[in-house]
């Protein structure tokens, strides 16, 4: 059954299980340590792999002497150099798995399989790699210089020509605009640093390669691995039971998968390859740094007349599959504006490759755009939220069609304004410049849009009814820790009128059915929940038909009522009785979502209010309260939605205040490649977070009215914080994160622009 054949659940539909805070299914296993992650797997005869990484940011590998490593105790196999990679190529540049040229410090050059991880690591140290060190470059400004070393032989180290999109006449509109704001904004390189590092166990048996992967996309891993290894996709089975965080970095397979597979083929044994924290920080993806030159023109009422954004992002040494950063997005879509030009350039640098990271591009661009909008509001003396209202659009101006939820943003503005107490917020007197003016407080606002959160077809699912009346949902899609199992169980329970406890969910295995989407773009729930609902409805129809036969009446006369099939005039039977009567035939429902309505444009909007304190004596910025109101359509499970909002806000606070991968330009080495020095927020860095989804079914998105929630809540956090810091101390920051160093330097400059520091 196709989900579009089912009636919509319009706003106000009376639902029993959907919309309740059913506890996360796997919670007991996770809190008791029973949940098995791919790095926990211990198969009979399993070997452990360790990876040799280039210590140089750019070097030719002259030779690799593996002799001493092979003689180490416990070592079973060593693969090194181009030959060791057996023709497997990687990244969008299709470079050899172990290339003749290393293009970042951490680039893989060899791997070892041994009977223990310690033995494998010792053997890696025993490898003797002869490098010819080449000139390197890090940082997008430096990489763009004409004299910069060329990383892939492209002009200006660009990955491709700039992607330019323009509507209207931006130059003329800017020139004519009475109000102009122009700044260059910068955002840092941020590392996902999921608690579980990338890792896989591969077992190459004669007829099939089985991979247990920590991934956001079992189907994609099967596809890409098959392609890389010269297999048919049918020969590769990928299993993902639990994932300890992905945040986009696991939306594509990394070399751990291929290395484990090649070593397994050589040894005939299962091989586990999991990155250590260093590898995770340097060679498993990042949100690339950006430089955004933004010019905004407005009329004296604050209506946008022109936006011009020259956007440059750090791609790292290679490009990965999928969108690494949609930097143009908010400029093109968040506000009504007839004259918009965005130019996006990605630049190669001798650092680890960039990959999608929670709302990639939008998080970076929102900092710049929403800082500029706040500045415009202050310049004009217009309330920041009112300024957004004046610039609202209900239309996707790039595609010239309406949003599926054109009034979401105005409703979000109303809701967050009331929740936060925005209009009653304390108004600061203009601060004295510099420190030590003690602790000052401020409020900030930012709005957001996100290009995804809609279905990414196809999604397939089956629902089988067991003879005891319970149901089993089967789909290949993975649960990356967001609670997919739980919401799919809720949707099936709703359609089958079952208690949610009587619905089992089997997922995360490509052998279980047809392909499923990668969990990226916040697409999992909007794709899979409709498919599961359709499968459950299909099962219900089959059940009703069987009951009608057994009760000797027409299917139209039978209704399902909480475990009972009731005929209009001829009695009733329990579900179990009907199924028993049907046995050995079974009820097996099939559901799919294979297309989406193209007449509307589905977006997920949101907004955040931040309250901060800034200690002008120590430069400490503390976020003291966050209010987040995202639009994810219908809320299937408020507890899980709140978890995603809290997680996104937390990651946003890290992006705003502490997280930045620092690279030594001369050595080309990331210096803070550990959780000690790369500062993700601790629980004490996080404030009370009021997570209040709009909860308004978006029936333009699908029949359930559900959209994604994983990514959007992160987007407005950093600009809301930066705008609150401005409110507190009167300083506008154009670069993140707001470390003590950055804040104290700015305070010193504000106090005495001609002297180095205040007294």
């Amino acid at each position, binding site marked *: 059954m196709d989900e579009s054949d089912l009636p919509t659940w319009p706003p106000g539909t009376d639902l029993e299980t959907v919309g309740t805070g059913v506890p996360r299914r796997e919670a007991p296993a996770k809190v008791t340590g029973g949940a098995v992650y791919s790095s926990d797997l211990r198969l009979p005869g399993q070997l452990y792999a360790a990876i040799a990484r280039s210590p140089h940011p750019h070097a030719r590998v002259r030779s690799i002497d593996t002799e001493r490593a092979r003689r180490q105790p416990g070592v079973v196999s060593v693969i090194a150099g181009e030959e060791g990679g057996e023709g497997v190529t990687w990244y969008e540049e299709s470079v050899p798995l172990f290339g003749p040229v290393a293009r970042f410090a951490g680039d893989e050059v060899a791997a070892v399989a041994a009977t223990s991880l310690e033995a494998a690591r010792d053997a890696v140290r025993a490898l003797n790699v002869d490098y010819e060190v080449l000139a390197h470059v890090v940082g997008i400004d430096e990489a763009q210089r004409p004299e910069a070393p060329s990383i892939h032989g492209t002009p200006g180290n660009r990955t491709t020509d700039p992607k330019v999109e323009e509507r209207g006449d931006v130059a003329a509109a800017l020139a004519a605009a009475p109000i102009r704001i122009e700044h260059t904004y910068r955002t840092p390189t941020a590392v996902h640093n999921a608690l579980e590092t990338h890792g896989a166990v591969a077992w190459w048996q004669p007829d099939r390669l089985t991979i247990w992967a920590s991934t956001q996309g079992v189907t994609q891993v099967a596809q890409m691995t098959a392609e890389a290894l010269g297999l048919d996709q049918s020969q590769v089975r990928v299993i993902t039971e639990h994932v300890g965080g992905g945040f986009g970095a696991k939306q594509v397979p990394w070399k751990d998968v291929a290395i484990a597979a090649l070593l397994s083929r050589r040894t005939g044994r299962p091989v586990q390859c999991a990155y250590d924290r260093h590898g995770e920080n340097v060679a498993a993806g990042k949100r690339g740094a950006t430089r955004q030159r933004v010019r905004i023109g407005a009329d004296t009422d604050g209506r946008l007349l022109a936006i011009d954004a020259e956007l440059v992002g750090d791609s790292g040494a290679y490009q990965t599959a999928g969108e690494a950063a949609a930097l143009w997005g908010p400029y093109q879509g968040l506000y009504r504006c007839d004259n918009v030009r965005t130019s996006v350039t990605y630049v190669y640098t001798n650092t680890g490759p960039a990959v999608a990271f929670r709302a990639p591009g939008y998080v970076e661009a929102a900092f710049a755009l929403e800082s500029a909008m706040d500045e415009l509001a202050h310049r004009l003396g217009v309330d920041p939220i009112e300024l957004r209202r004046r610039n609202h659009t209900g239309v996707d101006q790039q595609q010239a069609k309406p949003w599926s939820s054109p009034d979401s943003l105005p409703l979000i503005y109303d809701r967050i304004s009331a929740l936060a107490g925005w209009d009653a917020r304390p108004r600061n007197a203009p601060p004295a410049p510099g420190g030590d003016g003690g602790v000052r407080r401020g409020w900030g606002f930012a709005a957001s849009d996100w290009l995804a959160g809609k279905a990414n077809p196809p999604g397939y699912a089956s629902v089988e009814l067991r003879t005891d009346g319970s149901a089993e949902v089967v789909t290949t899609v993975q649960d990356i820790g967001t609670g997919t199992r739980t919401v799919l169980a809720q949707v099936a329970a709703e359609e089958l009128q079952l208690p949610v406890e009587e619905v089992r969910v089997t997922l995360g295995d490509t052998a279980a059915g047809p392909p499923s989407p990668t969990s990226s773009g916040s697409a999992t729930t909007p794709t899979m929940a409709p498919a599961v609902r359709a499968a459950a409805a299909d099962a219900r129809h089959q059940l009703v038909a069987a009951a009608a036969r057994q009760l000797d009446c027409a299917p139209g006369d039978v209704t399902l009522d909480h475990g009972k099939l009731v005929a209009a005039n001829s009695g009733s039977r329990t579900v179990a009785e009907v199924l028993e009567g049907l046995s050995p035939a079974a009820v097996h429902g099939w559901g799919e979502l294979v297309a989406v309505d193209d007449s509307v444009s589905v977006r997920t909007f949101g907004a955040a209010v931040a309250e901060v304190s800034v200690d002008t004596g120590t430069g400490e910025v503390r976020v003291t309260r966050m209010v987040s109101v995202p639009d994810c359509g219908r809320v299937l499970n408020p507890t899980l939605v709140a978890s995603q909002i809290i997680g996104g806000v937390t990651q946003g606070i890290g992006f705003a205040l502490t997280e930045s991968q620092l690279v030594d330009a001369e050595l080309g080495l990331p210096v803070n490649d550990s959780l000690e020095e790369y500062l993700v927020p*601790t629980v004490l860095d996080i404030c009370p977070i009021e997570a209040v989804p709009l909860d308004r079914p978006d029936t333009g998105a699908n029949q359930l009215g559900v959209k994604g929630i994983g990514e959007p809540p992160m987007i407005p956090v950093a600009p809301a914080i930066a705008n609150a810091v401005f409110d507190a101390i009167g300083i506008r920051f154009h670069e993140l994160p707001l470390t003590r160093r950055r804040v104290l330097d700015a305070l010193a400059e504000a106090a005495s622009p001609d002297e180095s*520091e205040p007294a």
Partner: protein
Amino acid sequence: MTPFDYQRIPEAAAVPAQLTPTVRPLAGGTDLLTRLKACLDRPDALVDLKASDLGRAIDRVDGGWRLGALVTLSRIQHHPGLRADVPALAEAVSQAATPQLRNRATIAGNLLQRPRCWYFRNERVQCWLAGGEGCPARSGRNEHHAVFDTDGPCVATHPSDPAAALVALGATVTVLDGGGGERELAVADLLVPPTDERRVEHVLAADDVITAVTVPSAPRSTYLKAMDRAVWAFALVGVAAAVSADGEVRLVASGVANTPWRLAGAEAALAGPGLTPEAIDRAAAAATDGAAPLAENGYKLPLLRTLTHRALTAVA
């Protein structure tokens, strides 16, 4: 990590004689293990001091406290007597690391930690302190590095919070050597900048073991710390202020030099025992006298002045 032997010796007094440059003591291990894993240290053997009768007691002694070398940071943090009588020490340990680490880390081991400089700790870099050449931090990423005494061979800062507090408090350590000799050493003299011949931040010989730390009382004392997140980070700058029994005010900063840094200019600017608002203003302004910040860490100067001001105000 390279393989090593693991040894237990029940009598602490017998340990020093067994120690050599490659047979090293292990206590909490919170720093040593990270160094072993990074191959910064490659000992042949470790002698586990926790298996010995080395001191674990917190005792009141004349004029102060005596802490056995194996006393953990957690016990100091939660000890009512220490919190009341030497608050600078209790505050310093409570802001160090995390509860898990504080449950393991010992007070003596904390003083002997190696710097967290991200070049020194990086296996792919062989800096002067790690036995190689040069200091990449001097021209590299140095926002966490020293602002005083920066013309030496190394600009790493001392990582210990308690060390600054102990120097301000005038604490001493008791050291037992391999020949059975015992000596008393001020913490201020224990911790010294590394030299070409001794690329380590303390003066202990290979066969020396700290057996106790003696801390004079100073109920008017405090330690303030600035980090880039709320917890679990080393000090960007920390300031310990202590008023001794005879009324002397000592000010010592962490995060600004190879060792805990006595703020002599600030102490002199107090010009007398009265901590008046004017005197505190003068002292805070003088806290950065002689500072020579690097390219990325000029922010530490206003930070140091603020923390000095607030620490003095707290003990006034």
